[in-house]
């Protein structure tokens, strides 16, 4: 086993005795998961539960003339059938806009399509039956009379005057547009010795969570309460949305999220079919379950990327970058997804491109258009892989043009490590990054010079290997400026409540949730360290809006940095409470005591004074022995929200080493490296595996994954045999290293680590392929995924 934690040496207030911070503590929930004792929504069964199945539009765009559900209603086991209008009785429509994305527009979306279906796969009718199989039998009997309408499939022509407007009331197919003109781009062009341009194409892809979207909604009419078991990343956000659109109070809704079989941003949105499931449960007054099957997932889970970016870079002979310019176009389907909107990815591309270089001159245009394909929205590393591949692709092209080594051109242009705080031309602000240190570290880790020599040697033998590199930044720990400012009720803060029970055990309740990242472990580590108990004495409770502090959930790499800090503060507060109590019992000064490993000790000498179990016993069962007027406080809650910076940006660098078979166009990944800086590392093992998993998701984008649509808006490969996800055989081993630059915005200093891998990998693979093929005079490859056909065409073999 190769656990090679690259542990940070930075320890401040965190350097408590017996601290778990910085240690590769195994996650407390893993034994349960390895023994098949997980509890996922798809496993959930409730008394009187029914199953709903959706009839989905086979057309990308069609008027619904009529829906005949008579035969389906009479089929065995069927309890009810619903069409769009039936659900408007209990559920209001929604519009996916945010006020801070100026001009962003979208149309009302309903749980079931009303008069029109706007993408292939949109639900038009719901059948509810005793079992999923019976519901599917009946769904096959539903007769929908469609009038097929012209489909807007191509984003490039979506704004042409002759193209039909999908939502006529909006005037055109433009969802959102943003322009940036920073510094003096024209002067930047004039200053350049060389201007290099390229068009980068990012294929549509999707999350393919192993557990598909799943929800069980239970309306208890007697309690007038809705309980929803949902595989979501944001339980409180969903609580708000269910209440709002059912027209009931938030406290009438409880969202329970247990184990979630993968999320990656897929499960942080309001999906029409899930909203319909909730509406149906209310109408039927009993539990209703919906689990998307795999074919439905491909048609309805959010897709992402699908950007076409024209990019330009200006560079001087000495390698100085003088200007970046991008023109980004993306088609996001027929609706902006609720409530986070589908403008964010393009907005991130504009924010991030070129931002970690010193060049002040930047011009950007992003246009987001409607089309009749499945909706697109935020998916792991939103916008990052695009901005990174465009930036780093351009930098590599510029380096090649002026004959400079790719590492050298980056060294000359990165914002220096002592150049922070810094503001990028797009306006985003960096507290402190470590790009130079990260670059130096990866060069050492990968033995860059040796690899170059090996590459050269092998080329002479007709073996084409490439080295590709990307530096990048990563948005983590979002502040309220991400969503809250735009009017979305998505909590930016999170809280942790720690309570001491009668046995001296601590329960730790938090609004963030776990989908495998290790949130439970991280919160337990921080809480145990701050409070001063063994981690085995901490039990973390999450994923239940009735029983956790109101919070944002787990997305945008926010759980460790935000809820982690709340846990740190809550732990300290509860420790103070306990020491005050101990001091009373021991007749000592509270500040002379400490709680270490579950035992109250003299802080100076570490002499053991009293076990926490004994203190808990007295507090709970014999408070009569305490002095009059002293009230032990056994619960402490603390909240945290990032305020000093809109985001805690992290940074990193990746490198890919691969071999292209120039006969077949196949790419063999030989090795991959990543050095990243997520600030304080709470658990090196978890961080490294986040990065590795993210890298492979990025490799999927670079080489395999693509939602292929035809010109009529039909998805051609919506199954797991034809949509290629990365599998074990083709993936490389990855070496992960760290630089540690804690954020000063929290005591813990932790930033996020979930996006880094996915942000940097596609560009690294792209650059490596182009590096491999450069001696063959290949046309530069900039269209992902890089299939054998594209590669062979680039080198003129086909």
């Amino acid at each position, binding site marked *: 086993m190769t656990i090679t934690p690259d542990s940070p040496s930075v320890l401040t207030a965190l350097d408590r005795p017996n601290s778990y911070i910085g240690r590769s503590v195994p996650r407390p929930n893993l034994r349960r998961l390895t023994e*098949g004792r997980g509890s996922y929504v798809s496993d959930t069964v409730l008394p009187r539960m029914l199953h709903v199945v959706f009839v989905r539009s086979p057309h990308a765009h069609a008027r619904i003339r009529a829906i005949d559900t008579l035969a389906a209603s009479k089929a065995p086991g069927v309890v009810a059938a619903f069409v769009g209008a039936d659900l408007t009785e209990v559920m209001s429509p929604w519009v996916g806009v945010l006020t801070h994305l100026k001009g962003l527009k979208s149309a009302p979306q309903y749980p079931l399509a009303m008069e029109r279906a706007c993408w292939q796969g949109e639900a038009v009718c719901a059948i509810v039956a005793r079992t999923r199989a019976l519901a599917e039998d009946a769904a096959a009997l539903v007769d929908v009379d469609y009038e097929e309408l012209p489909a807007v499939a191509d984003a490039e022509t979506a704004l042409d005057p002759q193209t039909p407007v999908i939502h006529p009331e909006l005037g055109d197919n433009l969802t959102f547009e943003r322009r940036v003109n920073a510094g003096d781009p024209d002067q930047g062009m004039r200053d350049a010795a060389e201007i290099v341009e390229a068009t980068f194409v990012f294929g549509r892809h999707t999350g393919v969570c192993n557990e598909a979207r799943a929800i069980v909604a239970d309306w208890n009419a007697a309690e007038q309460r809705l309980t929803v078991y949902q595989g979501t990343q944001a339980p409180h956000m969903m609580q708000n949305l269910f209440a709002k659109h059912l027209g009931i109070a938030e406290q009438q809704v409880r969202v329970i999220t247990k184990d979630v079989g993968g999320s990656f941003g897929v499960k942080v949105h309001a999906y029409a079919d899930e909203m319909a499931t909730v509406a149906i449960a209310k109408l039927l007054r009993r539990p209703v379950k919906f689990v998307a099957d795999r074919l439905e997932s491909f048609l309805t889970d959010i897709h992402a990327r699908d950007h076409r970016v024209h990019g330009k870079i200006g560079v001087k002979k000495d390698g100085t970058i003088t200007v970046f310019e991008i023109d980004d176009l993306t088609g996001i389907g027929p609706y902006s997804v609720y409530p986070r909107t589908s403008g964010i990815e393009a907005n991130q591309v504009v924010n991030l491109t070129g931002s970690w270089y010193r060049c002040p001159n930047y011009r950007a245009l992003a246009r987001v258009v409607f089309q009749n394909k499945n909706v697109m929205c935020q998916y792991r590393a939103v916008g990052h892989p695009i901005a990174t591949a465009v930036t780093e692709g351009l930098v590599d092209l510029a380096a090649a043009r002026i004959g400079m080594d790719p590492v050298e051109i980056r060294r000359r242009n990165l914002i220096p490590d002592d150049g922070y705080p810094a503001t990028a031309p797009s306006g985003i602000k960096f507290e402190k990054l470590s790009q130079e240190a990260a670059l130096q570290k990866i060069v050492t880790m990968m033995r860059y010079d040796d690899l170059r020599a090996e590459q050269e040697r092998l080329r002479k033998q007709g073996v084409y290997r490439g080295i590709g590199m990307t530096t990048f930044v990563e948005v983590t720990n979002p502040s309220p400026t991400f969503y809250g400012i735009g009017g979305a009720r998505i909590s930016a803060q999170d809280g942790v409540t720690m309570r001491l029970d009668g046995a001296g055990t601590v329960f730790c309740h938090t609004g963030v949730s776990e989908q495998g990242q290790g949130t439970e472990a991280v919160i337990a580590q921080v809480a145990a360290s701050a409070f001063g108990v063994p981690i085995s004495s901490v039990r973390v409770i999450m994923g239940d809006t009735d029983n956790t502090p109101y919070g944002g959930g787990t997305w945008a790499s926010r759980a460790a940095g935000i809820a982690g800090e709340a846990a740190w503060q809550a732990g300290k507060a509860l420790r103070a409470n306990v020491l005050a109590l101990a001091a009373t019992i021991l007749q000592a000064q509270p500040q002379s005591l400490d709680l270490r490993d579950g035992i109250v000790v003299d802080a100076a000498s570490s002499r053991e004074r009293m076990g926490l179990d004994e203190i808990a016993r007295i507090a709970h069962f014999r408070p009569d022995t305490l002095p009059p007027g002293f009230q032990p406080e056994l619960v402490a809650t603390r909240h945290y929200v990032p305020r000093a910076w809109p985001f805690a940006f992290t940074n990193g660098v990746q490198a890919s080493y691969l071999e292209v078979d120039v006969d077949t166009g196949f790419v063999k990944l030989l090795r991959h490296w990543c050095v990243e800086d997520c600030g304080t590392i709470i658990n090196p093992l978890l961080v490294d595996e986040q990065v590795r998993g993210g890298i492979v998701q990025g490799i999927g984008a670079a080489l395999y994954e693509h939602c292929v649509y035809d010109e009529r808006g039909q998805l051609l490969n919506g199954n797991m045999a034809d949509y290629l*996800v990365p599998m074990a055989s083709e993936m490389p081993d*990855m070496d992960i290293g760290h630089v540690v630059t804690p954020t000063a915005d929290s005591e813990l200093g932790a930033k996020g680590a979930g996006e880094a891998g996915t942000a940097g990998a596609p560009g690294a693979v792209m650059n490596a392929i182009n590096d491999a093929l450069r001696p063959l005079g290949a046309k530069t490859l900039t269209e992902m995924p890089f299939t054998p056909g594209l590669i062979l065409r680039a080198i003129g073999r086909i």
Partner: protein
Amino acid sequence: MSIESCPIVLTVNGETVIENVEPRTTLVDFLRDSLGLTGTRTGCEHGVCGTCTVRVDGTIVRGCLMLAVQCDGARVETIEGVSDTGEIADLQENFRLRNALQCGFCTPGILLTAQELLSRGGMPDREAIRLHLSGNYCRCTGYQAIIDAVETTARQRTGTNS
């Protein structure tokens, strides 16, 4: 010959089970819905992802590509069974120590698949481990930690030094 439920008798994790099943019920749905053995899960229901892997008569199969009615007389083992017998306790522990799972949804299928390779004995190299697991989809880990954990288990079982 019947479209109605058929009686089947089989052993599941060592217990004799007598049930009636509709012919169309797949093995994985039978295990989950009729027996409550939810450790086995469906990921794609068309045989690609490996999430539903279980053992029938000692060899691994896709639970979504076999019908429950075909298992009449068979010996079926699931993650719950091999956990209770302790057969793969070492492998499970290595997955835990190496964080070779994140969301855990694919893990039971991966453990059973890996155990088939390990139970052949010998010390498979990393490529052989990757090949054997080539039909099991994991979105979270990037696979390396899984390969590490299986490799470690193989080394421990064969007494091979690293």
